[in-house]
C-alpha cells in the first residue's frame, strides 16, 4: 500500500491505483472527461492534469500510477492555468447551445467550465460546424458538441465488442461516425448516452422530454430479465411522469451498464392501456367496474361457495416471476391462511432462449426478474409451471385460481375452454391479461415504479426498488391487495401489514436465507441470500 499525499492529505491506496482514482476515493475531485472507470485509459482530454513533485511537466492523473511518497498537487496556479487552458480550448468550437441542449444541467462540460474554467473566451473566429446525424434507433449525434473524449468509441470496442463507432478525418475536422453511416447494432446502445460526458450523444427516447432540474431520480431495479440491473428511474417532479431508466452503478450486478431491452422496456407497460379500475362479475352478469371492496366481496362469496362444495384443496395460487418477493409471499401466505391451500405454480416461466453475450456485458435469456425470489417466497411449484396447472385443471383438481401479474402471462396458450372449468378466477394485472374476459374479479396492480419492494435475481441477490411514481388509477401493489383481501376474509394479523417492508419482514422470518434481513440491511446494492450447500446443489 503506497502512501502519498494529495494536496497535503496523506493517503494510502493499493499499488497500481492511479492518482485520479486515489483522489476520487479520498474525496478530492479532479475534473476529467476521457477517463471512465470501466473503460481503457487513453489520457486524451488533458483535463485531469496535476502537478507531481519532481516531474517537470504536469501529468495526467488518470494514467499515472501512485508511488510511495509521491506528492501530488491538484490546485496549484500551474494546474489551474492548465485546467483553464483546456476548458477554453474545449469550448472554442463548442456551440454553447446549452439552453437547447438535452445534456444541459447534467453536463460535465457545463460543470467543469463553471468549476475550473475562466468564465470567458478569447476566441473570435467562426466555429467548426457539423450536420446532426442519426446513429441508429437509439442515438442522435450532434458532433458540434463532441469533445472527442472517445468514451463511446472505447465502449463499442471494449464492452459491446464491435468497433462500429470511430472518428473519421483528422484533427479539428475529426468526426464521429459509423462506417458507411450504418446504424449502430446490439442491445447496449443506450449506454453510449450515459458514457458521453456532453450533449453529443443524446437519447432519441428521452430528448426534449424534460430538463434535469425538473427531474428526480429514484433508485430501482430493472424488471425485464433475471439479471436485475440496478437502475435509476427519472421522474418529472411536476407531472410525476416516468421519463427514462438509467443504469445505477452496482459492481455486484451490472457494473455501469444496462441493456436497451431493460432501459426502454418501461414503454411496454406505461405506453399501453393500464388497467386502472377493479372489475368483478356480480350476480351472474359479465365483468363490470366496481369499487375494490366489491371485488373483494365477490371473491369472498365465491370462495366460500367453492370451499363448502370442494374443500380447500381446489384452490391454486399462480405466482409470477414478474411480481415482487412481497407479492409472491403474500399470495402464498393468503392462500395458506384462507384455504389451507398448498397448491402453487408460476406463470411466465418460459425461457426466451435469447441470451446476448457481449464482451463486457451479458444479457440472460430468462426475461423475468424474480423467478428465484418467487420460489423463495413460498411459491413451491406443483408440476412444471403453467403446464402442471393445465393438467390439474383438466383433471378437475383446480376450481379457484389466483393469478399474480396476469398481464405477463407469456405461457398462455389460449386455453379459454380449459380455463372455463375454473369457477373462480382472480387476476392481478397491470395491463389487460389474456385471461381477463374469464375473470371473476380483477385488481389493477401497481408497477415496480409505483411501489416499494424487493426482487431476488439469478445470483440470489435480494435487491430493493423504491416507489417513484403514483400508481395508475386505482392500481394497488399486489401484496397490499392480498392483505386487504385477507382482511375481508377476517384473517388474523393482516391488519398490521401496512407497508411493503412489513410483508418482507414476515417473509424473512419464515424463509431460510432471508433470516434477519430488513430493507435497511439490503441497502442500495442488495445482498446475497444465504444458501445452504444442499440447496445450491439442487
Amino acid at each position, binding site marked *: 500500500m503506497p502512501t502519498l499525499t494529495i494536496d497535503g492529505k496523506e493517503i494510502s491506496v493499493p499499488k497500481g491505483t492511479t492518482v485520479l482514482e486515489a483522489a476520487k476515493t479520498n474525496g478530492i475531485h479532479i475534473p476529467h472527461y476521457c477517463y471512465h472507470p470501466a473503460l481503457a485509459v487513453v*489520457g486524451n482530454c488533458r483535463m485531469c492534469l496535476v502537478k507531481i513533485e519532481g516531474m*517537470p511537466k504536469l501529468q495526467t492523473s488518470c494514467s499515472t500510477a501512485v508511488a510511495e511518497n509521491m506528492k501530488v498537487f491538484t490546485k496549484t496556479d500551474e494546474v489551474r492555468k492548465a485546467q483553464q*487552458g*483546456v476548458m477554453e480550448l474545449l469550448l472554442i468550437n463548442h456551440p454553447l447551445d446549452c439552453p437547447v441542449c438535452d445534456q444541459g444541467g447534467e453536463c460535465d462540460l457545463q460543470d467543469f467550465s463553471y468549476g475550473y474554467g475562466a468564465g470567458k473566451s478569447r476566441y473570435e473566429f467562426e466555429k467548426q460546424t457539423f450536420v446532426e446525424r442519426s446513429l441508429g434507433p437509439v442515438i442522435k449525434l450532434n458532433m458540434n458538441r463532441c469533445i*472527442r473524449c472517445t468514451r463511446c468509441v472505447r465502449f463499442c470496442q471494449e464492452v459491446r465488442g464491435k468497433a462500429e463507432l470511430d472518428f473519421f478525418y483528422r*484533427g*479539428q475536422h475529426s468526426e464521429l461516425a459509423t462506417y458507411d453511416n450504418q446504424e449502430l447494432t446490439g442491445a447496449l446502445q443506450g449506454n453510449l448516452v450515459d458514457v458521453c460526458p456532453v450533449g453529443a450523444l443524446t437519447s432519441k427516447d428521452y430528448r426534449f422530454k424534460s430538463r434535469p432540474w425538473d427531474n428526480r431520480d429514484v433508485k430501482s431495479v430493472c424488471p425485464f430479465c433475471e439479471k436485475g440491473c440496478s437502475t435509476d428511474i427519472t421522474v418529472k417532479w411536476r407531472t410525476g411522469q416516468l421519463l427514462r431508466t438509467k443504469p445505477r452503478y452496482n459492481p455486484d450486478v451490472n457494473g455501469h451498464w444496462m441493456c436497451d431491452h431493460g432501459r426502454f422496456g418501461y414503454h411496454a407497460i406505461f405506453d399501453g392501456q393500464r388497467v386502472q379500475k377493479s372489475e368483478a362479475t356480480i350476480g351472474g352478469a359479465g365483468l363490470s367496474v366496481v369499487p375494490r371492496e366489491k371485488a373483494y366481496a365477490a371473491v369472498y362469496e365465491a370462495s366460500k361457495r367453492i370451499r363448502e362444495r370442494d374443500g380447500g384443496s381446489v384452490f391454486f395460487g399462480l405466482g409470477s416471476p414478474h411480481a415482487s418477493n412481497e407479492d409472491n409471499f403474500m399470495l402464498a401466505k393468503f392462500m395458506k391462511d384462507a384455504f389451507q391451500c398448498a397448491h402453487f405454480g408460476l406463470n411466465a416461466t418460459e425461457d426466451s432462449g435469447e441470451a446476448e453475450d457481449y464482451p463486457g456485458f451479458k444479457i440472460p435469456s430468462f426475461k423475468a426478474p424474480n423467478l428465484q425470489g418467487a420460489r423463495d417466497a413460498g411459491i413451491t411449484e406443483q408440476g412444471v409451471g403453467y403446464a402442471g396447472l393445465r393438467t390439474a385443471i383438466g383433471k378437475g383438481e383446480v376450481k379457484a385460481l389466483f393469478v399474480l401479474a396476469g398481464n405477463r402471462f407469456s405461457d398462455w396458450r389460449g386455453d379459454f375452454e380449459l380455463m372455463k372449468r375454473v369457477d373462480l378466477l382472480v387476476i392481478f394485472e397491470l395491463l389487460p391479461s389474456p385471461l381477463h374476459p374469464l375473470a371473476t374479479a380483477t385488481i389493477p396492480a401497481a408497477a415496480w415504479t409505483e411501489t416499494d419492494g424487493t426482487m431476488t435475481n439469478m445470483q440470489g441477490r435480494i435487491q430493493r426498488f423504491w416507489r417513484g411514481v403514483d400508481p395508475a388509477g386505482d392500481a394497488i401493489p399486489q401484496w397490499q391487495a392480498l392483505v386487504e383481501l385477507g382482511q375481508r376474509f377476517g384473517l388474523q394479523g393482516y391488519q398490521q401489514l401496512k407497508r411493503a417492508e412489513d410483508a418482507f419482514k414476515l417473509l424473512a422470518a419464515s424463509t431460510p436465507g432471508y433470516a434477519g434481513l430488513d430493507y435497511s440491511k439490503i441497502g442500495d446494492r442488495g445482498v446475497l441470500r444465504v444458501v445452504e450447500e444442499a440447496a445450491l446443489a439442487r
Partner: protein
Amino acid sequence: MEATLIKHIGHTAFRDIDTFVQGGGYRAVEKAFGMRPEEVTEAVKSSGLRGRGGAGFSAGMKWSFVPKESQLPKYLCCNADESEPGTFKDRQIVEYEPHLLVEGIIICCYAVGIHSAYIYIRGEFAYGAEVLENAIAQAYSRNYLGRDILGKGFDLDVTVHRGAGAYICGEETALLESLEGKRGQPRLKPPFPAVVGLFNGPTVINNVETLAAIPSIINNGADWYAAIGPERNRGTKLFSVSGHVVKPGVYEMPLGTNLLALINDCCGGIRPGRTLKAVIPGGASASVLRAEECNISLDFDSLAKAGSMLGSGGAIVMDDSTCMVKVAHTASRFFYEESCGKCTPCREGIGWVEKLFRRLESGGGRETDLALISDICDNVKGKTLCPFGEAFSAPLDTFVKKFREEFLEHVRQKRCPFGNPPPDPVH
C-alpha cells in the same frame, strides 16, 4: 572527410546488390555475426550514436531497453515516414543506399534478437518503397535475409509498409498504431515501445539515418565513430538544406559543423544580392534562429541550449526577402492540417493559432494577438499527449517573440509589408 551515409548519392548502380557488395557492402553483417549480440549493442552504445529522427536518444541504450526474454515476438520498426517540413535526407538513403539501410537493419535485429522488421515509409515515397522492395528481394536471394542467414542460424524477415499520408505517423507510437492497421494516433506512454510496442511485443523504432550509420560503426569500430564530432554528439549527420541558398541539397557533415559554414561552404551561401535573415535549423518544429544566432555548432546540445533543436537536421534558410509572419502562418497551417485530433490542446490550439497568424498576415491582426498566441502556445506546451504539441507551440511562439517588430508592422500597416497577398483559405 569521407561520406558514409550517402556515399553513392546520385548513383543508382548501388541499388544493385552485386555493385554494393563489390564496394564492401554487407561486410558489416558478416563481422557482426562474428560478435555476440551484446557486443554489437555495446559497440553502438560506445560509438555515441544518437538517434537521427529528432529526439537524439542514444541508439545503443534504446536497443538495450528491450527485454532479452519475451513471450511475444520482438520487432524492429524503421521509421522512414520522413515528413518534417524542410527534411529530405532519409529519402536519399532510401533511394541511393537501400542496401546500407537493410544492412543496418540486419545488424540491429541480430543485436536485439529480432526476427521481424518493418520499414514504415511515408505513402508519398512510392518510388523509394519500390527501390527498397527490390533491394530486399535481392537481399533475400543472397540469403542476407530469410531463414538461416549466411548459415549462421539467424532468421530475419523485412517488410516495407507504406503509410497513408499523415505526418503524425512519424511519431513512434502513432507509427505502431498505423502499422497495426489502426487509426494513426499516438499512444499514451508509458508503457514505452521497447517494452510494449508493435502488436504488444517489445519494439525498437529507429530512424533510417540511425540504422544506416550502423554498418560503418561495425566496420570501422566504435572508437572510429566516437572520434567524429564533439563530445556527446558523435558521428556524421545528414543536413537537408533548403531555402534561399545557392546550392540547396543534402550534405553529410560531422555533428558540430558550424551553421554558417554549412550555408556558406557547402551550399554556396545566400543567393546573390541578399542577406541571411533567419534559419529554422531542424525542420519546422525547431525554433527559428535569427541571423545573429546562426554562428552556432550544429549538434544536439548546442541547439537545445539556444532554445531550438537539431531535430531532423532540416535547415530552412531564409533571406531578407522573407516575411516571417507568412512563414509562421505557413508552418501553423501545416500543423493545423496534420494535428491528429486525439488530445484537446493540440487539436483545438493549433486551429486557433492558425487563424490568428492568418489574420495577422492578412493585415487584420491586433497587437494583443501576439500575447494571445504566446498564451495559447503556453497552454499547449507540455500538456499534450505526444510531442506534436511542443512541435508547433515552441517554434510558433518563437516567431512571435523573435520577430515581434515585424508582426507589429503588419498590424500598423494593416497589410503584409512584403506585399504578400492574404493566405489562401484552408479547406
